[in-house]
């Protein structure tokens, strides 16, 4: 005996409707339906209500008859064959609402359909029903008006969450409004799209009007002036139609795109980070689905590109968010072809010139920043406003500039090893001496640095003299130490009880004091 597998209809409806996570997907499905109905105009309005959103979609397409309405409400029973919504899944997003009302006129006959509490019923494991009535009078205007009441948009259509720029971006990146078909098809059917948000959602403008054409920014092939010479550069590539050969036959891929700087990219209705919007998009029905940024070699950031590769032989998941035949030969051929195509683009001399212009801008900005710093430093040098050194090398440089220390010795730096405890070898009046260099004398003790190998301690300043006195009072690592602040010396006891001494040079005092030297000839010439 043969058995037929059973389908739980309610669960299927619930599952498909639930797969649509982003409430904006309702716009995508509505626009696709209007486009399939050959509408030249579609108006969408969204109003937020306490129990969800009220959405109205009104188009002037060819309308629906009884069969079409069945397909509209049925699951997987589309009348369409070569159009976007052939699976009969898309309109099921409307079920996430309190009421669906459809008024549609086809060939003069007007039908009204109504479905009440679809989402509540589905969640109660009940299949919602719809009622169809027919208007008696003939209408001369065809088209469809759909009213969705209480659409469960979560917080997606709340004020602050939904804005005109966000919708515009969604339309161009995720719906038929961003179609690139017009680059390829002479019989392209243009559709005007108006979206109106309730003032409670976004009152920054009255409405958004666009078409179902994705338009790239105007080309600018040469660098501009200013700090960012490449930011408005833009070059368009294609449209190109390529036939892919693969194990299962041939497929057509239609590629069009651009490479552009940030300013040119921002002429598109971008929203948020460019890294989520730019790159290489795979599309079906000329609606972008997923990106394949690996098609651009790793050394060229995908962010500079926006390419759309449309192929009707890729297969999509029920909610159109993913490509599901990635292991197929057609997808592999598509990957290969796109890598090949994009390699040509990234090796286009124009693109290399664009990258050069970016680098030149970067270098010019660095140079400009350095010039500002130089001005600042020159000002300080001219005003003799000596700021605190930033590192040990600067301390030594200042000492070298001074030419003498507080002991009256001429000083030249002979060797510098910044990582060593003995940071420098200095020549003091002809004697080579091991020197430790510190921001302050206190820092030397704070760091618990050794004293024994050192002949001279070169410090920018003393540091906190009270802290030094505390060290003197308590001892340094269990041994005596004495600071002679007047004569710039310190005496200490080493680990075996022997006494050592070393000179201390406080460079800040030296460079701010008139120089005293035993031999004037060793002093660096004073600036005048």
């Amino acid at each position, binding site marked *: 005996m043969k058995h037929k597998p059973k389908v739980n209809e309610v669960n299927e409806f619930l599952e498909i409707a639930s797969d649509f996570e982003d409430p904006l997907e309702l716009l995508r499905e509505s626009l696709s339906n209007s486009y399939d109905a050959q509408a030249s105009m579609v108006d969408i309005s969204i109003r937020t209500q306490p129990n969800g959103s009220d959405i109205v979609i009104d188009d002037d397409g060819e309308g629906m008859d009884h069969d079409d309405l069945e397909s509209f409400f049925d699951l997987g029973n589309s009348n369409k064959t070569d159009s976007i919504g052939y699976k009969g899944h898309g309109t099921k997003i409307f079920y996430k609402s309190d009421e669906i009302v459809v008024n549609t006129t086809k060939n003069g006959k007007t039908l009204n359909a109504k479905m009440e509490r679809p989402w509540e019923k589905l969640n109660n494991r009940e299949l919602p029903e719809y009622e169809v009535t027919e208007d008696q009078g003939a209408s001369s205007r065809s088209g469809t008006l759909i009213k969705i009441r209480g659409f469960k948009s979560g917080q997606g259509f709340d004020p602050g969450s939904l804005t005109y720029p966000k919708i515009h971006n969604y339309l161009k990146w995720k719906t038929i409004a961003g179609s690139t078909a017009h680059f390829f098809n002479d019989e392209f059917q243009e559709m005007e799209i108006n979206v109106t948000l309730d003032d409670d959602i976004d009152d920054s403008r009255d409405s958004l009007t666009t078409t179902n054409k994705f338009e790239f920014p105007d080309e600018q092939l040469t660098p501009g002036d200013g700090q960012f010479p490449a930011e408005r550069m833009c070059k368009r*590539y294609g449209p190109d139609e390529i036939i892919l050969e693969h194990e299962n036959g041939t497929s057509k891929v239609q590629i069009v795109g651009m490479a552009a700087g940030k300013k040119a990219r921002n002429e598109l209705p971008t929203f948020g980070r460019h890294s989520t919007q730019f790159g290489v998009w795979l599309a079906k029905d000329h609606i972008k689905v997923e990106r394949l940024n690996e098609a651009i070699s790793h050394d060229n950031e995908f962010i500079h590109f926006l390419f759309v590769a449309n192929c009707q032989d890729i297969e999509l998941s029920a909610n159109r968010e993913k490509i599901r035949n990635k292991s197929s030969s057609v997808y592999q051929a598509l990957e*290969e072809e796109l890598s090949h195509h994009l*390699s040509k683009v990234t*090796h*286009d001399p124009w693109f290399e010139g664009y990258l050069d212009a970016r680098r030149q801008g970067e270098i010019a900005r660095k140079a400009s920043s350095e010039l500002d710093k130089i001005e600042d430093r020159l000002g300080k040098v001219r005003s003799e406003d000596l700021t605190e050194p930033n590192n040990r090398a600067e301390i030594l440089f200042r000492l070298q500039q001074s030419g003498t220390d507080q002991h009256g010795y001429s000083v030249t730096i002979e060797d510098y090893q910044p990582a060593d405890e003995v940071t420098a070898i200095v020549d003091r009046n002809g004697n080579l001496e091991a020197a430790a260099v510190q921001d302050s004398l206190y820092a030397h003790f704070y760091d618990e640095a050794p004293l024994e190998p050192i002949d001279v301690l070169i410090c920018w300043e003393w540091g906190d003299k009270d802290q030094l006195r505390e060290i003197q009072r308590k001892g340094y690592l269990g041994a005596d130490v004495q600071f002679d602040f007047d004569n710039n010396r310190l005496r200490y006891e080493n680990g075996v009880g022997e006494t050592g001494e070393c000179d201390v040079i406080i460079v800040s005092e030296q460079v701010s004091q008139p120089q005293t030297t035993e031999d004037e000839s060793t002093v660096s010439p004073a600036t005048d």
Partner: protein
Amino acid sequence: MSLRTKLTQATEFTVDETTGDARAGILTVNGNTMETPNIFPVINFYGGGRSESVFGGSTHRTVKELINSAERVDNVDCSEFFRGAMMSVGSLTDYGIGRDLLDVYLAEPIKERPEFRGFDGMIFADSGGYKNLKKGGLDGSDFELDLNQRQVFEMQKKLGGEILVNLDLPIVPEDSFEERIEKARKTAQNAIEFIRLSESYPAARFLTVHGYNYSMIDTFFDELQDVFGNMNIPSFFDGIALGSLVPKKDNKETLINAVQGCRKVMSERGLGSMPLHVLGISRASIPLLATVGADTFDSSSYIQAAINGKYYHSILKTEAVDDVDFSHCDCPVCSSAELRSRMRGNAEYRKDKMGPVAVHNQYVQMKELRRIRRHIRKEGKEGLIEYLENTLGRDDSTRKYAHRVVNESLGGYF
């Protein structure tokens, strides 16, 4: 300086078609002609053996037998794939021969020996500069020879070389600027002596230059010219041989830079009509470098690949010879049941298995060069672009280089 200019009757190079920077021409030396771009496969005519073993050389020996259509190789005739051959002075002692055998090898020109009766190609006699750099001269079993220009030329002449290069001092990537200058100047001094020595020898004389990019090669030429004084290069030399690229053979970016740079320097110095030979580079680099203007190549990779058990399906694709289905190839080697059997391993010696593979590999290179020449000779750039697109452009490892040369030498895609 009083030097006789070149023997103009010996050599002629005519470019009869160009596509972008690529050019197709005819190189004639002593009445022998060769279509360019083309390759001189490296053959060790002398490989440690004596007359009865076609002077030996293991796999090289089998290659020579296939050129001779010898009975040992089922009388298969592959001489047509060897319209030219590269023989380096430096390889004479590769097999650890004694002095007496060296004298035997140098006793008669290659093409006058009955042992090489099947070979009638053009002999490019390399100076062995690269070997000299690595080993400091020729190192036999009972002798050592410090190579100098006079000795090198004498050996090139005794081998019957028809294209000769001066003894050069190749550069290495680690060389400093000053070291490269010194090498250029020593190369120039050798080149002057080479001109003097070869003034009555009827051969094409190629001047060696070295560098990895335009500036290095330009400097090299500057130094040569400085040593040459008022000696005009085209009056004394028939071609330019660009060397030192073997250590960079896997860096196609550098290879393209070097050949592009060399052609530009040559053009700026009025040497644009001279042939440019690229020493030691072959396989997948050939289409790229021919596209940017190289005319001839040489390489032993066809034989090295065979020795490593690799059978060429194309200049890009190899397969382990043990796995190959030979029925897809119509070359004389793969068409012979006996040689197919040997390539499958039914051979007494390894050379008898690998020799046919080497010659097949050379056939693949020659076939590819024919295609390249045909595309250069076609009207318009589309043929060559399409060829590059469908070969190197379809391989991940070479794609970007194919796109680069199309963009830079063939007018680009967009």
